[in-house]
């Protein structure tokens, strides 16, 4: 995947035609890409720039450039660190649990079991539901009086309002919601593992566990790395689901970074500060992903 190779080859082949073609291309491309730039790239660049200003929500407030002052404030903000910690606990546990649960399900769905078709369709349903509906549905499940969970377990817990239970309860919903994508991707990966490899290992006397460890897992590795990375990014940036479930409560125990940023921006009006938080989370995500991908690549070598 070199960036320059195809272009170099193209221009060398038919120079004159290539050049006029390239110009035509450019002219065709330009009007097509301008709206994309304006609508999609523009706001993001603007958002990143806001992180270095003291922008407020008021209509007539003056905005000035403050350099890295917001980042300094952020690092000194205890509420931010608490939210950041909760965000990491949430994102890492949801991603890991999602992966383990989905791998198990994908392995089962890849076998010749009855009920398989039903389970496959069922496994897709959470994907087809609006996040808000998923949140509302689980609020019904967790409802302290009218919910089914207390009725089945014979407990009397206010799952989403209890200081110690709220975060785990929300994590369970996160796993439930994210399982379909991960399962589908892992299942597709499993189906691409050549059968011959399994059979060869079987002939060599390898048991089920050995075959899984030494054949399936290495073959699946690129898919696993890709989907867990994506899951982590999606999870750390989660907002709607948790907002519907708890609004960040009780007492901020489930206030993920994006809920914190939302409050800073749209409840208290600190646009610049909230943008700084967004940039900080982006930096953390890129660092975590970079480290993770780098380690995975090194292990493959």
């Amino acid at each position: 995947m070199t960036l320059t190779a195809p272009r170099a080859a193209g221009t060398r082949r038919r120079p004159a035609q290539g050049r006029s073609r390239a110009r035509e291309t450019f002219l065709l491309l330009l009007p097509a890409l301008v709206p994309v730039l304006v609508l999609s790239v523009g706001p993001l660049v603007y958002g990143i720039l806001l992180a270095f200003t003291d922008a407020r929500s008021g209509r007539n407030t003056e905005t000035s450039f403050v350099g890295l002052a917001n980042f300094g404030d952020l690092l000194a903000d205890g509420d931010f660190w608490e939210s950041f910690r909760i965000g990491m606990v949430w994102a890492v546990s949801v991603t890991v649990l999602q992966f383990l649960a989905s791998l198990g399900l994908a392995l089962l769905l890849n076998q010749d079991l009855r009920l398989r078709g039903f389970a496959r369709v069922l496994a897709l349903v959470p994907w087809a539901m609006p996040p808000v509906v998923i949140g509302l549905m689980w609020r019904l499940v967790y409802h302290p009086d009218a919910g089914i969970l207390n009725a089945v377990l014979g407990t009397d817990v206010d799952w989403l309002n209890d200081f110690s239970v709220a975060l785990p309860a929300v994590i369970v919903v996160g796993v439930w919601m994210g399982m379909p994508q991960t399962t589908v991707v892992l299942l597709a990966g499993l189906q691409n593992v050549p059968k011959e490899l399994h059979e060869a290992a079987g002939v060599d006397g390898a048991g089920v566990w050995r075959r899984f460890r030494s054949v399936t897992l290495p073959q699946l590795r690129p898919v696993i790395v890709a989907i867990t990375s994506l899951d982590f990014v999606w999870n750390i940036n989660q907002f709607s689901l948790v907002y519907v479930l708890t609004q960040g409560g009780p007492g901020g125990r489930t206030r993920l970074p994006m809920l914190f940023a939302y409050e800073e921006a749209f409840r208290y009006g600190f646009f610049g500060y909230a943008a700084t938080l967004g940039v900080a989370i982006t930096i953390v995500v890129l660092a975590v992903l970079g480290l993770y991908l780098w380690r995975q690549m090194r292990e493959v070598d």
Partner: protein
Amino acid sequence: MGGRTVRTALKYLALLGYVVFLAFPLAWLLSTALKTPQEMASLDPTWIPRDPTLANFADAFGEQDLVGSATRSLAVALASAVITVLVALPAAYALARYRGALNKVAIGWVLVSQVFPVILIIIPLFMVLRGLDLVNTLPGLALVHVTFTLPFALWMLQGYVRAVPRELEEAAAVDGAGRLRALAAVVAPLLVPGVVATLLFAFISSWNEFLFALVVLKDPEVATLPLTLVKFTGPEGVVRLGPLAAASLLATIPSLAFFAVIQRRLRSGLMAGAVKG
């Protein structure tokens, strides 16, 4: 032999565990939707409604708020889907046909745009909308939804364009048709399924979207369906849970239908290709 039977039994047990975990919240939503207000108020939750009723669905349709906000959601979703495709299609065509560094930059952009938290996009968009006096308006929300859906729609569409053989287009051009004629007569019909899929995707993204709506639409008069649902129960509490469950089920129908249509492709190549991409 015995070991094998035990193993199969364990597999079925595990599969059953998954089915229960995945299905029980759905079953509870359905059960709640079929219960009478009296049963909800009795605070004695049971799986099977004692006196099953469809009244909650009728109630949901009778609620001004719900019907009004569903209509508004529909309008926003339709508008943003159409605009997204109109904006993305020329760009997708250009990117798919003229490969080079720019193409890689664009694909890279689609991936990178996944990493940035939406808060970085929603604040500047909110400021722009305020400048244009579009806060609290449906066109404002539709515009935001377009920017939010655009990268992925672009990526989807350029894949579909790429699947149309270039030779077809060139052959038509050789036959004397101008480039635009060739596009309209040869490429456009082949792109219809891809365009429809992208329209549906954009429609569902907008229909389901919550955070942007929460920020842009402060006024309950203009709230979309997800906003109305979240605020639905209010102080009356438990008694309203039945209609809420019914309305939630109804709100799921569009995306459920969409997934029923594309689920075959989801199970096979599409997502695997997306990740390998």
